[in-house]
């Protein structure tokens, strides 16, 4: 494997292979009720407690489109810079399975609600554009549970009929790292829009991964294999690595790759054949006669556009311009909507005389470290943005030193305490009174005359010793800048 110029290639003897990846991401629409029924969609509910007669496909039951889900799909389309189709059609995808009560999934086949769009990825060696082929709405199936009983399979229909957006990328991705960046970017955009919570543990975001390989510099695509239903980025990356190498090995051995659907075994870290092209289902797609074509007006779309918040790309641009942040810093802050929200609240609470760089450093440093160690999301931060802003201001205006600030921060974590109060109660206020500090320094120089002389004779290293002594004598509270200045003067 070589990573020359960040290019992901697979090397065999004299040959180099490029990996071509396309993703079909299934994102659960953030909605209280299902795509064609009014049942709830809460995660983790008791089995079969969120099932209507429609979801269980009772005779004579009919689907009625949930307008909110349509709006969510269109908003997502707008967020992906995509064409919104004013007329789309729901089709039936017919197949039999125990957790598919209707015997078909209502999906969109020929005429999806969202057409072509694009997503920009920030890669270490620059930006990369990934094309979106389409986004369509479809129903989720239920869940078959095989391990509760040796003889029987249990079926939970809570998910049956839940709205999914299938987002199909063009085959533009070239490495596991790009897949990682792509999924994270999609997730970020949808979380900004509030159209998908992006929770991969709860299955709100999963993907079918299409992988093929081709000799470097070749223009033609190789035969692809589809790895079904991978539910974490790490597994996607592992599956791609395995699958790409498997395909390269086949080519190197002079064998051909069969177009097929494969499963990723997370325990054995390998993909294995699920069904070949010959065994592929014939889904007998046809327009669902229970539903009229879905038609939306220009006005409807325009109204939704007004609801679109500032998205990560724009926010990043603004952060760089407005706050003079580096692209790297801006990326960290905008990638998750909650981080961006926290940061912007801190900025707002800091008031006029603010030090944004300092705030960024503290968020990405101390705060992230605490969140990491406690396994918390920033939305659950033990320190509110308000108190965080006060702390930064205390550093900025010299009330406390950066070092003392760390002590204060640790005390803040327990119960979101006001840093101002901590400083007062614990007497941690920085000593910035020049006269007091001068007296303190005079005493230290007096007590260490010999060292002072050595310093004057050129042993400049000793300056640090005097700073240390001064800080120690002040209990760490002395303003280090002032100490520096006074020491320079006195020595």
């Amino acid at each position, binding site marked *: 494997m070589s990573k020359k110029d960040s290019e992901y290639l697979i090397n065999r003897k004299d040959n180099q292979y490029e990996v071509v990846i396309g993703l079909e991401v299934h994102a659960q629409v953030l909605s209280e009720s299902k795509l064609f029924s009014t049942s709830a969609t809460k995660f983790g509910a008791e089995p079969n407690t969120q099932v209507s007669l429609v979801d*269980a496909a009772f005779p004579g039951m009919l689907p*009625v489109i949930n307008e909110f889900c349509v709006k969510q799909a269109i908003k997502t389309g707008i967020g992906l810079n995509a064409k919104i189709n004013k007329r789309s059609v729901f089709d039936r995808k*017919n197949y039999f399975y*125990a957790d598919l009560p*209707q015997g078909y999934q209502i999906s969109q086949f020929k005429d999806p609600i969202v057409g072509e769009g694009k997503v920009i990825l920030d890669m270490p060696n620059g930006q990369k554009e990934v094309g979106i082929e389409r986004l369509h709405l479809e129903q989720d199936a239920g869940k078959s549970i095989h391990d509760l009983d040796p003889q029987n399979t249990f079926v939970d229909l809570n998910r049956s009929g839940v709205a999914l957006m299938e987002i199909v990328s063009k085959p533009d991705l070239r490495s596991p790292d790009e897949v990682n960046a792509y999924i994270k970017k999609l997730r970020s955009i949808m979380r900004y829009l509030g159209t998908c919570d992006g929770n991969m543990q709860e299955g709100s975001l999963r993907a079918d991964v299409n992988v093929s390989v081709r000799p470097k510099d070749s223009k033609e695509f190789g035969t692809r294999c589809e790895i079904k239903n991978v539910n974490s980025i790490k597994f996607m990356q592992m599956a791609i690595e395995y699958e790409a190498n498997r395909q390269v090995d086949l080519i190197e051995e002079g064998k051909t790759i069969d177009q097929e659907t494969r499963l990723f075994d997370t325990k054995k870290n390998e993909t294995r054949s699920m069904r070949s092209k010959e065994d592929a289902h014939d889904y*007998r797609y046809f327009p669902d006669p229970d539903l009229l074509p879905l038609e939306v007006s220009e006005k409807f779309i325009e109204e939704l556009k007004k609801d679109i918040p500032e998205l990560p790309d724009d926010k990043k641009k603004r952060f760089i311009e407005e706050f003079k942040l580096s692209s790297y810093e801006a990326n960290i802050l905008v990638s998750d909507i909650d981080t961006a929200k926290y940061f912007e609240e801190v900025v707002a609470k800091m008031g006029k005389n603010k030090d944004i760089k300092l705030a960024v450093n503290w968020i990405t440093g101390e705060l992230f470290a605490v969140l990491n160690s406690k396994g918390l999301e920033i939305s659950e931060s033990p320190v509110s943005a308000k108190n965080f802003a006060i702390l930064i201001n205390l550093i900025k205006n010299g009330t406390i030193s950066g070092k003392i600030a760390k002590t204060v921060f640790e005390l803040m974590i327990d119960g979101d305490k006001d840093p101002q109060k901590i400083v007062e109660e614990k007497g941690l206020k920085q000593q910035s009174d020049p006269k007091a500090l001068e007296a303190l320094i005079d005493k230290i120089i007096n007590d260490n005359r010999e060292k002072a002389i050595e310093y004057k004779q050129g042993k400049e290293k000793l300056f640090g010793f005097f700073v240390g002594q001064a800080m120690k004598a002040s209990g760490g509270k002395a303003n280090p800048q002032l100490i520096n200045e006074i020491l320079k003067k006195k020595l």
Partner: protein
Amino acid sequence: MSDITKQSLTQLVENIKNKKLSSTDVTKAFIDRSEKSEKLNAYITNDFTSALDKAKKFDQKPNLDLKLPGIPMAVKDLFCTKDIKTTAGSKILNNFVPTYESTVTENIWNEGAILLGKLNCDEFAMGSSNETSFFGNVQSPIDKNLVPGGSSGGSASAVAGQLTPVTIGTDTGGSIRQPASFTGIVGLKPTYGSCSRYGIVAFASSLDQAGPMAQNVKDCALLHEVISSYDPKDSTSIDFKRNHYSKELTNNIKGKKIGIPKEYRVDGMPKEIEDLWQKGIQYIKDCGAETIDISLPNTSYALPTYYIVAPAEASSNLARYDGVKYGFRAKGENLIDMYEKTRSEGFGAEVQRRIMIGTYVLSSGYYDAYYLKAQKVRKLIKNDFDEAYKKVDAILTPSTPSSAFKIGEKTNDPVSMYLNDIFTVPVNLAGLPGISIPAGHDAKGYPLGLQIIGKAFDEQNILNIAYAMEEKINFKNKITDWWIK
């Protein structure tokens, strides 16, 4: 009153409103006659005991402002009825008891009617003779061993045989109009989107419509007025201004232009059908309306188109009957085996035939040649009607190419069975309203019907034409009570 069951719905409503009859009198009379009519095999499930209770309850506190005050009524077993077994004529739903009510039947009960029971029909409404029902043939009251038509065969028999004053059926390709024609009664297939499909066991979603079946046009208009409603639970239901069909009913059709489509003169059509049609044209003229020769050039493609579209939708609609959630389940070695056994044992031959046809025409490689092409032809057929309606207000045709046939006569010849629908299917494909009225008898004394096809949402107009013609025709159904115990 021994002749209660001979009264029309309109008369019964009037007599109950005038307190000349109680709901209990009427309900009892129809239950008695139904009980003596087992030979017809019109019912799959009866609910007589609770019907009588409901009638008594109604009489204690009668609400006479309702449109169907205390009127007993049996309905086709394709309508889901809360707490009453609903089978669709199939073994696969033999044990199915819905927890919900179809919108159409809900509308009926809301107007004061009382459920007598569920009427026999072809399995999943697939048939033209009621011979595909898991619950056996229905006999026609017209003659022994005569089919009542289908798929609403039980409904037609029950109305013609006076087991129920009126009823509702469903019509996907002629399933109301053909049996109405075979049994000498009136049957209306409303405009697609006029009556909600919610709670009706689906056969072919883009074609299915519920509609009234009655002894006469006025009863038919009254029942249609009750069942037709906009329903947000059915995405294909249409919110248009509905008439008070019975109140607005008039026999004044002077100046109306009625189209006579030459393509309905099909090869091998019996002379008596042609004669009936000519008589119909004369009646139209007698009513002061005008007839105009028109052309519906794509008529001959309607039947093949129908037998692609309907099975395609059915093959998908019936996928839910898989033994997993409700209904019949056969034991199997594994999931696939269970599916295969359940569906092989649970569905009858005709249903299986149509599932296979539907699966075939939708399969990849055949979709374009069959399903897609059929959809295009369907559009052409609709365009034919649109073109014709630029010149005429309604269209007159025979309802069926022949009178009723004997039980078993066409069982082994599905194509000849399918030909029964030749005059009715174009109407479903175009989503239009059509009504069949009894207009005469053939040489054997079996009823023959004429069909009036209207513009979309123009039920009032075809009801008026039917009403005016009915007066001129003065049809008398020859019911001998041959089956009564």
